[in-house]
């Protein structure tokens, strides 16, 4: 794989993370626990889909085969999607959604803080712009982790449950795949080994404030970054891609 191809695959991976979590968050629109939070979570969904567009546009440009952001989003099958397993997990309830967002935001924050200094100017500029949004997302999700963890007995129990259930999807966030290892060696992406302790420290700090206990999961689930997804992924794409699949090749 040459540099251009590696960059293309990395832009896809980043775009897929943003798109799939954006798609999940957008399921909340109109159904939030309180109007202000309905609006706030939709705002994050908007940011995530917006970031997905930037990455997929960049990927399309790098590939240079005339594919568009929509071709990449709507016409790739499940196995070509490279998002981490965490982002495709279902909303379930507000606790799961907040925990999923928090874990993703912490990782995403440190990743983008490094990516804005990437030796690839395309990546650096997308990362710099996205980091502003992600900083806000992280503040929002951290505040909600604390509020619900340290809220009532019911909210504490729900948050701990969500954390216990989602924890096994965090390993994959900070474990390099072959693509990332290659790109890290030329300074295009950071070494995730460096991000891992930052991720762990920030998570530990917020969980402590939230009176939640960090799960001790001995085994982590992975596969998303290699295109091997959970059962949820097929349904996400079936729904998202339905019109483009029913009516191929049209403008909307």
């Amino acid at each position: 794989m040459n540099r251009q191809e590696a960059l293309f695959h990395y832009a896809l991976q980043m775009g897929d993370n943003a798109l799939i979590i954006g798609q999940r968050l957008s399921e909340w629109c109109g159904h939030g626990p309180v109007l202000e939070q309905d609006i706030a979570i939709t705002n994050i969904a908007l940011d995530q889909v917006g970031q997905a567009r930037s990455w997929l546009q960049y990927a399309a440009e790098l590939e240079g085969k005339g594919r568009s952001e929509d071709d990449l989003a709507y016409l790739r099958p499940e196995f070509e999607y490279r998002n981490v397993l965490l982002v495709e997990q279902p909303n379930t309830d507000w606790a799961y959604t907040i925990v999923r967002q928090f874990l993703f935001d912490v990782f995403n924050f440190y990743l983008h803080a490094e990516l804005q200094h990437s030796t690839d100017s395309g990546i650096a500029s997308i990362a710099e712009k996205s980091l502003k949004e992600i900083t806000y997302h992280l503040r929002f999700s951290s505040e909600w982790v604390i509020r619900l963890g340290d809220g009532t007995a019911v909210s504490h129990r729900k948050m701990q449950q969500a954390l216990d259930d989602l924890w096994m999807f965090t390993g994959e966030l900070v474990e390099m795949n072959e693509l990332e290892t290659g790109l890290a060696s030329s300074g295009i992406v950071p070494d995730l080994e460096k991000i891992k302790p930052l991720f762990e420290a920030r998570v530990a700090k917020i969980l402590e404030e939230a009176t939640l206990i960090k799960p001790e999961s001995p085994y982590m689930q992975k596969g998303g970054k290699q295109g091997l997804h959970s059962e949820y992924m097929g349904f996400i794409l079936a729904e998202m891609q339905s019109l483009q699949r029913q009516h191929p090749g049209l403008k909307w």
Partner: protein
Amino acid sequence: MNLEQQFQAKIDQEIKIEPRDWMPEEYRQMNIRQIAQHAHSEIVGMLPEGNWITRAPSLRRKVALLAKVQDEGGHGLYLYSAAETLGISREELIDQLHEGKAKYSSIFNYPALTWADMGAIGWLVDGAAIMNQVSLTRTSYGPYARAMVRICKEESFHQRQGYEILLTLCRGSEAQKAMAQESLNRWWWPALMMFGPNDTESTHTEKSMNWKLKRKKNDDLRQQFVDATVPQAEFLGITIPDPDLKWNAERGHYDFGPINWDEFWQVVKGNGPCNKKRMNDRIKAHEEGAWVREAAMAYAEKRRMRKEAQATEKVA
């Protein structure tokens, strides 16, 4: 002049009534009813379009639809705030909605079945709403009038966005154009019903007009809407499903066929295709959110107590 005469004099002079001004109890109640109904319509109105966010056919459309539905939530927020200035809480208003005591616009009891409906809702439903809301920017109650100014700006953007969705479909494939026509067939008559019953049948019109709660009559607004919309349909190249629709040069307006008021009243009474689903969705969101709201309050209380304890320590 007594209080009521002074109040009427202000209204006649186009001076806005503000929250702390004296007002007849009936004026207060009519305003609460109207603003709440409007707020509820925004919130329930998020549901039919929300139904298509995850299936929007391009990323650009997905972002636009998300932003649009989010705007509706924002409108609901400032309308509830406007109603609260009249001495009722958002919780009470939401309870009234869920108990079936408050109404919302009946149009949202119709289903959004195809992507073209995202176009038709923007073009026709928001279009009809704007006709009404533009006239309400001059309503006599200050907070409501000001909320309307802000809302109208966003609504007209939504309307153009909806029209543009349909324009894209009508300039697309045969299947897309058929989708647009089918959508217009379903939404046209319910959109005309949005202006409410004929003025001869409407119970509140006279008092509403005197108090300038309402600035234009239902039938006048409906006519204005038809006149504005017919040329837009012609430009799209789709046909309004009304055989009686024709230009009347003498009146300077389009004539249109009879509205099925039986259907209108059935939907108002709860027998529309989606009344139960819409209410169940709202109640479900509210009930499933209860623990979140309780936890947020409990946490705020804990924080307040901790701060107080810290302050006491410092003093000691």
